[in-house]
């Protein structure tokens, strides 16, 4: 089993090399990428079954024991994240392949798309299985470098402008992360997370607090937590539809994952629950208020993405086992649903020619299947029972009630309001884009459309509509089926999330896995 863990990272990297060599053969590149990601999906599924019954798999890279060597730790949380990301990457890859085949590869220089995409995958997987803080940094840098390339793909003016914001912000957060690692090394003399967890508790409380906050600042920028979320809605929507889908689903969640590790493994004694709750509250409210003002569906979804990160921060702030279980379930739900909605929006753009709700209508008549796909995703994100978004929120709110502080009740109220406002924003999209007959779009006035703002450099008008290839439809349908599956099998999945959260009940579970003989 221990051979699988490094393979999760090695296979995408080898795949990237092969895809780069095959630059001239685009079909072959698609086959290589799809095969690689399928293998990783299968391997991580096997690993998850094994880890769930036998406990974490720890690999000492190069045979050097921790803390001298680098350790890879595949516990339940890491394996769940790898499995879900691999599934998302595979679905989006098929979507992108469908788009490339239909458009004759004119819009994206595919020869670099596939290698970069696989490097992004490798970076994600290495960040998830890293048992070493510096390895986590390297994983972040891998996936960020790949994301810079994907975001500025084809180098049009709009993408370069969006890319500059994104890259400068990411570089700043990376520098903060690196400086935090230096501080932690100075204080504890190690970068192995398990050993940091042990040594940090001997430090004075204020030093622990400073170390924890400097790490959290870096991760909060990556997770787009308010007030460090300003960059996200400006940069994500300009990328090609599949790239936006992957970024929205996965990149912010890596930040959330790192926050979970910081808060529950390394700095268990630091009490910053109340500041985290306030931040979660502001993220929820300000994010969703931004979403209400957007006319462009992609920008609207980017703002809901920022907003819903607040739920996860809320769960981490409560910190009880039930809250962590609900958070993990919510992360999985949010990754899948957000990715699916961005893909569905990509389909809407092909059918309607634009994603601005001021200028498109009649999609329900033009393409009923696309409408159904968008509708299921929208209801799920809005938290309508019985979908998984509702179940995750109920779990979180239950844990909040169990905590019982006034602030947690305020957060439950804010969470409910955010859920309803998300629903409002998405139903407005439904009414305008899908239900409104396309003939009514010209000169249409409604109080619903007052005070909406378009994308800043929106050119207006619509582009030529394109056919929707079967592969794109099939990929999106598969993802929607996955969101429905998340609802149908919510019981067993919630149990798995509860077992995952139980790993964090005592900090020693993680430490014991890395140091079976005990820390010297």
């Amino acid at each position, binding site marked *: 089993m221990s051979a699988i863990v490094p393979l999760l990272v090695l296979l995408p990297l080898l795949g990237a090399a092969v895809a780069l060599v095959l630059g001239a053969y685009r079909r072959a590149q698609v086959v290589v990428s799809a095969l690689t990601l399928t293998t990783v999906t299968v391997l991580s599924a096997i690993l998850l079954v094994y880890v769930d019954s036998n406990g974490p798999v720890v690999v000492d890279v190069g045979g050097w024991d921790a803390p001298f060597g680098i350790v890879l730790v595949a516990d339940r949380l890491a394996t769940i994240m790898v499995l879900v990301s691999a599934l998302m990457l595979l679905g989006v890859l098929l979507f992108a392949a469908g788009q490339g085949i239909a458009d004759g590869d004119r819009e994206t220089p595919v020869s670099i798309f596939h290698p970069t995409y696989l490097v992004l995958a490798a970076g994600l997987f290495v960040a998830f299985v890293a048992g070493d803080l510096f390895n986590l940094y390297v994983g972040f*840098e891998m996936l960020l*470098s790949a994301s810079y390339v994907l975001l500025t793909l084809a180098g049009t*003016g709009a993408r370069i*402008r969006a890319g500059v914001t994104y*890259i*400068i912000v990411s*570089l700043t957060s990376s520098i903060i992360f690196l400086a935090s*690692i230096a501080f932690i*090394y100075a204080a504890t003399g190690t970068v192995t997370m398990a050993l940091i967890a042990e040594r940090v508790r001997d430090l004075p409380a204020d030093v622990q607090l400073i170390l924890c906050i400097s790490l959290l600042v870096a991760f909060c920028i990556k997770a787009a937590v308010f007030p460090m979320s300003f960059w996200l809605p400006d940069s994500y929507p300009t990328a090609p539809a599949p790239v936006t889908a992957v970024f929205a689903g996965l990149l912010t969640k890596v930040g959330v994952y790192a926050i979970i590790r910081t808060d529950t493994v390394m700095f268990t004694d630091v009490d910053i629950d109340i500041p985290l709750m306030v931040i979660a509250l502001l993220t929820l409210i300000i994010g969703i208020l931004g979403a209400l003002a957007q006319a462009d569906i992609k920008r609207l979804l980017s703002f809901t993405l920022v907003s819903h990160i607040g739920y996860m921060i809320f769960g981490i702030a409560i910190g009880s086992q039930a809250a962590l279980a609900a958070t993990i379930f919510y992360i999985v739900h949010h990754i899948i649903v957000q990715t699916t909605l961005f893909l569905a929006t990509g389909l809407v753009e092909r059918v309607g020619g634009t994603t601005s709700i001021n200028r498109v209508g009649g999609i329900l008549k033009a393409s009923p299947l696309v409408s159904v796909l968008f509708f299921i995703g929208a209801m799920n994100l809005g938290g309508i029972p019985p979908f998984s978004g509702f179940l995750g929120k109920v779990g979180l709110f239950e844990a909040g009630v169990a905590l019982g502080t006034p602030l947690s009740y305020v957060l439950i109220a804010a969470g409910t309001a955010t859920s309803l406002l998300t629903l409002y924003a998405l139903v407005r999209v439904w009414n305008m884009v899908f239900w409104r007959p396309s003939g009514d779009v010209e000169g249409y006035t409604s109080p619903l459309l007052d005070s909406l703002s378009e994308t800043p*450099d929106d050119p207006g008008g619509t582009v030529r509509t394109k056919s929707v290839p079967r592969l794109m439809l099939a990929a999106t349908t598969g993802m929607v089926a996955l969101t429905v599956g998340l609802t149908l099998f919510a019981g067993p999945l919630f149990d798995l999330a509860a077992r995952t959260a139980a790993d964090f009940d005592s900090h020693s579970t993680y430490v014991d896995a890395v140091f079976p003989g005990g820390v010297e």
Partner: protein
Amino acid sequence: MTASATLILLMAVLYAVGITVMLERSLTRVLIGFMLVGNATNLLILLVSGPNGTAPIVTGTVSDEGMADPVPQVLMLTAIVINFGLTAFVLALIYRSWWLAQLGDQGDSVPDQHHGETEAATDATFDAVDLDDAALQKILADSDEHPDAHNRGMEGER
């Protein structure tokens, strides 16, 4: 822990200068600021490694207690390589934004490689603008808010 006062001072100055320069609007200055801050962080990592010492890992030659801590050096090397790669990428990005700002909407139709290139052909393609920071800054400032107005301005200059 002992640390060299010179290095601490140098790190502080690099951070201060780097952050100040990063706050400028021009992309090249942001990049220079990033490089300074990156090097300041590398110095920080070196500083946390403790007192100077003999070459690590090699045993049996000098007294083994006097070894330097090798881990921060490894971290630094990795960080230097990453910063190098990112600097190259941002340079490419700056070049591309200059390219687009120079050529406006035609930017995408002009090939990167000019066949049978002469100086005259290059001059015909590009505007003869002095490419100092002020020009870049102006282009960036224009392209940020009013892309159309900027394009019209470029037409007028030709």
